[in-house]
């Protein structure tokens, strides 16, 4: 059973719909009792850093979520700001992130010909092995829309890198934690493949 965190800051319906079409059992997590029976978690995130962090704080889900991810090591997939809040902090806000990954979120500072937000379809290159990308078409890529990027301060098992004026981390894999800056739920067949891989593969 895949649990999709529904704390008012993400596109939960689009993700649920993809899993429903794949006939993969899933449910929305709105309160801590909903975590019951869940084997993997999706942490979506749309909005400004502080708004997303506040919503997670107010949801009452944060403590149990961190316990499940850091202690019980259940696989988790962060999407967009769901990736960014795994960092310690962000230049977009003042609130602390979850701090699961030693990273900070930085604002794109690019030459004027690079318009920000970085918006649209872009490609990636994977360093290390990350089976979660099995079967995806790198040339087709994924959909991005963001003004801030995830800047790692630690070595993780695998990263994907994307170039837009600079090269930045567009996906990470650290043990049971998987996260992407791009939106698999809005990336057609590539996104479906990625979400399916997360659901069916052994992630630890």
């Amino acid at each position, binding site marked *: 059973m895949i649990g999709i965190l529904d704390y*008012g800051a993400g*596109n*939960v*319906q*689009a993700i649920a*719909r*993809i899993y429903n079409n794949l006939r993969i059992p899933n449910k929305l997590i709105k309160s801590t009792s909903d975590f019951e029976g869940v084997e993997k978690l999706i942490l979506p995130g*749309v*909005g*400004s850093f502080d*708004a997303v962090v506040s919503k997670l704080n107010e949801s009452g889900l944060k403590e149990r979520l961190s316990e499940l991810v850091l202690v019980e090591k259940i696989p988790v997939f962060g999407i967009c*700001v769901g990736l960014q809040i795994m960092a310690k902090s962000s230049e977009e806000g003042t609130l602390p992130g979850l701090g699961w990954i030693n990273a900070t979120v930085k604002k794109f500072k690019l030459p*004027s*010909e690079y*318009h*920000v*937000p*970085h*918006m*649209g*379809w*872009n*490609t990636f290159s994977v360093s290390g092995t990350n089976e979660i990308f099995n079967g995806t078409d790198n040339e*087709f*890529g994924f*959909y*991005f*829309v*963001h*003004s801030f990027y995830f800047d790692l301060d630690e070595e993780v098992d695998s990263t994907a890198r994307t*170039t*837009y004026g600079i090269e930045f981390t567009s996906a990470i894999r650290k043990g049971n934690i998987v996260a992407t800056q791009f*939106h698999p739920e*809005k990336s*057609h*067949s590539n*996104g*479906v493949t990625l979400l399916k891989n997360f659901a069916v593969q052994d992630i630890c």
Partner: protein
Amino acid sequence: MLRSRIIPCLLIHDDGLNKTELFKPGKYVGDPLNAVKIFNEKEVDELIVLDIDNTVQGKSPNMEVIQSLANECRMPLCYGGGITTVEQAVHIISMGVEKVALSSAALADFSLCDKIAAVIGKQSVVVVLDVKKARWGKGYNVFTHNGTKKHPNKLDVLLEEISNHEVGEVVLNAIDNDGQMCGYNYELSDLATTKLNIPVTMLGGASSYNDIKSLIARHKIIGAAAGSLFVFKGRLKAVLINYPNREERKKLYHK
């Protein structure tokens, strides 16, 4: 490498899809959900859906319709039409829409964009400017209410102002080109892309994939939106939803 976005723009009028000409309602082109399903199969980059009745009729966005569109869309969706408050924008984003498009409400007070961006992030705030070449004097006028109300400020002034607010994208809709399939207005795209440091999407005039190719060649990275091109086929404008496939798209991108 980031690719330019090729974006169908669908207009809702009287609960159906309509393709306007020079901003006047034109041909009925089908059911919105059905169109979304076809565009899913064609793997479109993004989709813009604008309800052109709401602002002129003083109606709020129809949340039920938006929810059903958002549920169906497997690509990023931008919705516009009748959004006047932060609450409406937040509600729409919470339903799984990526971006909200504001026009008359933003032009009345750009601080609305800042307030919305504080909650949903600036990347999801789009301003749509309906523009028309000034009949007298230089520059472009900006209109709201389906081209009927002229804004007191010219386009270049408004673009300047937008740069000082939390806006993530500007869609420039060329009224003179609407439904005319006469190609994009490069004077406009040049002006907007040099004045702004956020993504720009051009709408109005595209008649062929070649027009899209030319626009992309000129700007390298740009949003190329179109209405008629993606819903009509042939001289007699038979309704046929179409979109370049992966191979065809490769030929359109900047090398």
